[in-house]
């Protein structure tokens, strides 16, 4: 693998915001600029490599992976949407408008012609013409290009609670006249705004991934660590258990566990239980990675040296060994999140995961379950597209991190 080192784009300095390893920029300014100069000249930063911290090396490696960098930006946007979904969603996700049942998506037009016929920046969406299909006996919406509803950014709306803490009365995007329809991704069978619902679903789906992985990580690090550090009989038992769990078909078992949750439980408790059920399987892979790292590091010279120096066990683990496998674990974790998200989506889709007052991508896809509704309203697939984008981005970032965390890969 001898690809020539890529030169970074101008302006892509060390201060690039938002990367997942942003906090690693602890280099002094002088070395930084020297390295930048060398990199810009198309040479590997040999001078910097000797003094660069491990995180710094990872960051260089990661930055070369274009797809991973782009995905990291997308991922950041997704997490921002998840964090600020009340502000991003133009409407209340539960508010229904029977007039607009299955209304199709309205495209945003940024430019409009003014009276003189010149293009001006004046965003709007087109209105609908409603006709009745006599044969199928239902309303058919046609986008009416003559009707224009002006829309705007940071529009004033009804007051709403942000994070349930304080009141705001502006939304990121919305119609200037709140009574006008604006269905960016269309409406569902109750006339609820699918865009707002998908935005709210982002919070639940992404957080299930994060919390589930956090739980698996605790289990995985503890059990994998014990397994790898002590070895012997206890290692044997834990490994057999992991192999056994990995050889089970997951979905039927998840379904069985999820079906056991009483349906009269409050949504939050169901949400937590589903997360726990998912992490009961997720810890196995993380435990394997942790164990593998422990096994290979245990015999390294620097660990032996530390032991001969009289370092205590916790010090050896956290001070000597941890720095060299934390990066691997971060990479594995980012590859485990998408599996959690896919699993939640599948369970909720089948109606055995999260239940309707909660909005997740899987719950939204329940609407797309029968062929009649997706044939009349293909935009019901939108939450599915969100799933694919989020999972893809997480996979690419994880892949990039894994490559970057491997000290032996010098592409």
């Amino acid at each position, binding site marked *: 693998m001898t690809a020539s080192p890529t030169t970074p784009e101008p302006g892509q300095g060390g201060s690039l915001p938002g990367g997942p390893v942003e906090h690693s920029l602890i280099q002094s300014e002088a070395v930084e600029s020297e390295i930048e100069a060398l990199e810009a000249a198309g040479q590997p930063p040999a001078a910097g490599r000797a003094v660069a911290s491990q995180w710094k090396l990872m960051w260089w490696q990661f930055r070369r992976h274009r797809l991973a960098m782009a995905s990291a930006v997308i991922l950041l946007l997704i997490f921002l949407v998840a964090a600020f979904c009340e502000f991003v969603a133009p409407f209340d996700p539960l508010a229904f408008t029977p007039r607009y049942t299955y209304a199709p998506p309205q495209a945003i037009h940024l430019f409009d012609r003014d009276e003189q016929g010149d293009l001006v920046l004046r965003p709007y969406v087109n209105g609908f013409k409603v006709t009745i299909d006599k044969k199928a006996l239902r309303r058919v919406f046609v986008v009416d290009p003559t009707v224009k509803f002006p829309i705007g950014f940071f529009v004033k709306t009804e007051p709403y609670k942000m994070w349930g803490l304080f009141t705001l009365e502006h939304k990121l995007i919305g119609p200037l006249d709140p009574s006008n329809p604006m269905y960016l991704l269309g409406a569902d069978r109750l006339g609820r705004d699918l865009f707002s619902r998908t935005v709210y679903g982002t919070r639940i789906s992404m957080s299930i991934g994060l919390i589930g992985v956090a739980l698996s990580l605790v289990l995985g690090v503890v059990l994998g660590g014990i397994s790898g550090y002590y070895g012997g009989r206890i290692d044997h038992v834990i490994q057999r258990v992991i192999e056994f769990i990995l050889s089970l078909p997951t979905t*039927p078992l998840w379904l069985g566990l999820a079906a056991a949750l009483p349906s009269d439980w409050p949504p939050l408790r169901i949400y937590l239980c589903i997360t726990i059920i998912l992490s009961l399987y997720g810890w196995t892979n993380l435990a394997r990675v942790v164990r593998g790292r422990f096994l290979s590091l245990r015999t390294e010279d620097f660990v032996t040296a530390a032991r001969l120096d009289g370092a205590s066990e916790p010090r050896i683990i956290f001070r000597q060994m941890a720095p060299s496998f934390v990066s691997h674990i971060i990479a594995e974790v980012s590859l485990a999140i998408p599996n959690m998200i896919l699993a939640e989506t599948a369970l909720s889709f*089948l109606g055995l995961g999260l239940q309707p007052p909660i909005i997740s991508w899987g719950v939204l896809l329940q609407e797309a379950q029968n062929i009649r509704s997706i044939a009349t309203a293909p935009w019901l697939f939108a939450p599915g597209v969100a799933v694919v984008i989020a999972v893809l981005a997480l996979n690419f970032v994880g892949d990039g991190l894994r490559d970057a965390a491997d000290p032996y890969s010098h592409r």
Partner: protein
Amino acid sequence: MYRFIVRRLLWMIPSFFAVSLVSFIIMRLPPGDFVTSYAADLATSGSPADQGTLDNLRHHYGLDRPLYVQYVTWIVNALQGDLGVSFEYRAPVADIIWSRLGMTFLVASCTLLFVWAVAFPIGIYSALRQYKIGDYIVTFLGFVGMATPNFLLALVVMYISVVYMGYSVGGLFSPDFVNAPWSFARFMDLLHHLWIPVVVLGVAGIAALIRIMRANLLDELHKPYVETGRAKGLPELTLVLRYPVRVALNPFISTVGWVLPTLVSGDVIVATVLSLPTAGPILIQALKTQDQYLAGALLLFQCIFVLIGTLFSDLLLAWLDPRIRYDS
């Protein structure tokens, strides 16, 4: 080698009891039992049953005995071929599940063959053209394949076939053949329907296998023995296919071990969307109605099916790959 086989076979016994215990716990986990939901059904239909009848029912089905007795009774009966009675269908579980499990087996095996047939050439191609445009396209499509939930893919396939091709794709048979006895025409009809679930289920596995095949082959391609072959003037294709590919083949055999669980898992969801007559849809139904013996038997057999697949792939690997030693 024989010691390994014997040990691997003996290992199946604790595995079997472990999966049966897991299945039993899951089927008894929901609060209440079938009789509770049966009573609720009767109550809503306006003729509530008295406590005596319900107790009799419970006693008849053995639901009033301690849990470990229920487990032992269930597993002993199961080993003798009696899997209990489905409350919902009012028929022995064994009568209901065999054809369903057979279909799951059929769909899973066909998918596995399909996954191999597609991933093999593409994986080799992708490795030989590393960092070329073809490799990038394959890699990207592979990631998309892994990122798409298979039920979503099933929905999209259904949507396309209904809206653009004008026919519905549910099931594994046309209406005329659903209950017909096996014949050549019925077999052809099956093939006509089978390809959709096979493709839908196979996509994620293909994507994963291509990546593994590519990585394995890349590891081999730069080894000295390949260089030697090239120096001796072997044509490139013959060289690659005869040596490094053979070494890189392991994942194709070990896939049985990890693709099978995902296929059985995927079957549950995809079969529900495409209304296939496999084990998945009735498992979900049984879990929702707390039809415990039916759900338990299905869970048990799906797990056993996967365990046997894993055993098979382990044995095959041990036989094929001389580097794997099991006598440590």
